[in-house]
């Protein structure tokens, strides 16, 4: 299956009379987009703001981030936005250097933050995109969970609406993602076959009934399965929490495996799974996932990453152990959380770990001129550990003492970051 991603390299984003792209400048008809999003019954009204790289501007209460995408022959985000259908083939337009940033106007304790300049900006790719920020205000009495799902859907709508402006544009660059069916995907014997095992969600935070994670499904009871990597890149997957969908659309591990396919490795494919909550289910799922990599994808080695909290470290360690028992080699990307030990559980047999960074590394962000998304953050500025239950609201415009993990995109569990850790 082959996906042609036609990329438009956007240089600037402005509000204008009509939505369109000219000379790599995206104009947005603000009222038209607002009208589109205000169709959602749970919203009282919607505001849209723009934040540009380099501005003294802070976006708070970030819920999700998306890259504007438009499938030339549909469907867009099937099951979640459009009706059912499949993705990962044909032609998709992508607006590069632009991101749709959703803010949650009912967030009480969110510390997800983007600074468009200053120290935080150095760490996050979302500080380098022109951000179209959505502020959907809920109708009074709106259910919190339903409202959040509506905000996520609004993000999808906006992402498609903006990228649709590129429908008649010739792409500046077309990236080809092509991988044949497994049975025909034979490479030279010298190149090791590498599979990617991807627990896309951890049910320690169960999904809502109507939540749309994979092809519109709430993935409860999801069993490990083979998917085509293009499906993850092309809108089949929306993260529920702990990660931003932009990093599925631009999945670093999938990109890396594609990049090196035929060079020093052969991309065997992707096993998609979830992290369940009981030990018995974890054992079952991780064994099945490893088996799929070995006996269906014919992998010599596997990489695995996680989405979620510390509980998923267990699943990764199990995947690793099962894989090596089956005769494959394994390596894991695991986010570190604790300044004293990084992670808490490393069995003796696990010797190949990569860190995308340590979340609880303190960072001070300077005061900014403009804040989008709210006025205050729930933060004990004197103690970013936030272990004090009586957290007060700190004006978001001020100097903030946070963790690096609070910066959207600074440390991504799927392996995007320009960080490693050391013991000081």
């Amino acid at each position, binding site marked *: 299956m082959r996906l042609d991603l036609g990329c438009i390299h956007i240089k600037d984003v402005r509000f204008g009379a009509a939505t369109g792209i000219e000379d790599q400048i995206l104009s947005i008809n603000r009222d038209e987009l607002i009208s589109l999003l205000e169709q959602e019954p749970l919203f009282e009204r919607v505001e849209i703001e723009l934040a540009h790289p380099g501005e003294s501007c802070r976006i708070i209460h970030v819920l999700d981030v998306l890259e504007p995408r438009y499938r030339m022959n549909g469907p867009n985000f099937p099951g979640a936005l459009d009706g059912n259908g499949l993705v990962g083939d044909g032609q998709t337009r992508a607006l590069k250097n632009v991101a749709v940033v959703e803010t949650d106007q009912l967030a009480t304790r969110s510390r997800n933050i983007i600074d468009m300049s200053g120290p935080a900006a150095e760490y996050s790719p979302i500080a380098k995109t022109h951000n179209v920020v959505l502020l959907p205000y809920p109708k009074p009495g709106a259910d919190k969970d339903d409202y959040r799902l509506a905000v996520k859907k609004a993000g999808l709508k906006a992402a498609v609406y903006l990228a649709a402006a590129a429908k008649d544009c010739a792409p500046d660059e077309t990236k080809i993602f092509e991988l044949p069916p497994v049975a025909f995907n034979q490479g030279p014997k010298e190149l*090791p076959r590498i599979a990617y095992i991807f627990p896309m969600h951890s049910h320690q935070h169960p999904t809502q009934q109507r939540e749309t994670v994979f092809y519109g499904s709430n993935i409860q009871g999801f069993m490990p399965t083979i998917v085509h990597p293009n499906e993850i890149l092309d809108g089949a997957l929306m993260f529920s929490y702990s990660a931003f969908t932009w990093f599925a659309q631009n999945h670093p591990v999938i990109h890396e495996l594609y990049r090196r396919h035929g060079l020093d490795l052969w991309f065997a494919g992707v096993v998609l799974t979830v992290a369940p909550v009981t030990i018995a289910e974890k054992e079952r799922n991780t064994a099945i996932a490893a088996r799929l990599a070995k006996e269906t994808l014919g992998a010599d080695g596997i990489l695995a990453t996680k989405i979620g909290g510390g509980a998923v470290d267990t699943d990764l360690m199990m995947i690793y152990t099962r894989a090596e028992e089956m005769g494959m*080699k394994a390596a894991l990307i*695991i986010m570190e959380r604790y300044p004293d*030990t990084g*992670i808490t559980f490393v069995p003796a047999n696990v010797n190949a*770990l990569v860190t995308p960074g340590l979340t609880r590394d303190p960072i001070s962000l300077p005061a900014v001129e403009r804040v989008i998304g709210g006025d205050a953050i729930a933060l004990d500025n004197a103690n970013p550990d936030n272990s004090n239950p009586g957290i007060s609201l700190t004006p978001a415009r001020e100097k903030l003492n946070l963790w690096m993990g609070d910066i959207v995109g600074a440390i991504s569990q799927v*392996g995007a*970051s320009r960080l490693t*850790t050391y013991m000081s």
Partner: protein
Amino acid sequence: MNRIRVVHYLNQFFAQIGGEDKGDIGPGVKAGPLGPGRALQQTLGENGEVVATIFCGDNYFAENQDETIDALLRFAVEHKPDLLIAGPAFESGRYGVACGAICHAAQQKLRIAAVAGMDEDNVGAGLYRKTIYIVNSGVTIARMVPTIQRMAALGLKLAQNRPIGKPEEEGYLRRGIKRNEFTAKPPAERAVDMLLAKLRGAEFHSEIAPPQFAGSKPAAALRELSSAVIALVTDGGLVPEGNPDNIEPGRPTRFTTIPITGVDSLEADKYDAVHSGYDTAIANRDPNRLVPLDTMRELEREGVIGKLHEFVHSTGGAHAAVENATVIGKDIAQRLKAAGVTGVILTST
């Protein structure tokens, strides 16, 4: 940039008051630099000013730590410091502990930057290296000037909120705190590199070291069970009804000692389980499910074991910081050993 206001802590010797004989003098203050403070001022140059020197006799500090720290901080505050520099103490233990303590207090209570200096084997280093920056001075006073220079450089960075480099670069003692640093290769690329190296049989280095638990050597096997003194210990948070010792349900810092002489079974209305990490209802209905006292009494009567130790030691194990757990464990172990206990059954939730 404004000149950083520095207060310098010295002991009686370096403050040029006297030697060992003057170790009992109480806390004092003088405007401007004293003794090695002059080298400090020279190093700071235009970037900082040693506005005051606070000092105290090493013995006095050791014997009156809390009041002395309060007094010294009060002296310091009058000079509106941005930074506290303490020492260097080299290998002088009492002085090192004082430097560590005053820096720690300045950081916590005055919320200013603080840097101490001492040798890495100084007692003060062991106590304080995790919470404050300690520049390694080595043992010889001949290293005074380079040490002061490093302390000043590090202190200025802290006071100016600039990023702090690695221990090897800045000269401070490793604190056991992980930090992030930039690197050119993204993790996805490094992971693929690592996996391919592994497949080739080439050398590679895992990026996350397994957490080090200072393991203990297991004791030799018990010889004679029928004459052994066995103790019961638990991390399930067993407490006498009402939790008189206030054992914390999470992040415990202490344990409780429960006397069980003449007690044959743990009755539900006399004991509780206090623990945030598990549902204690079942243990509360029959505490023998948490600490098997009834069974142990039977076995004692039958002569299977020699004697059941007269105390149950108990704490909670939820989110325990490794350090606290280690201290608690050692304390309990020492008491049991002193009481002639040779075997322990630890019940864990």
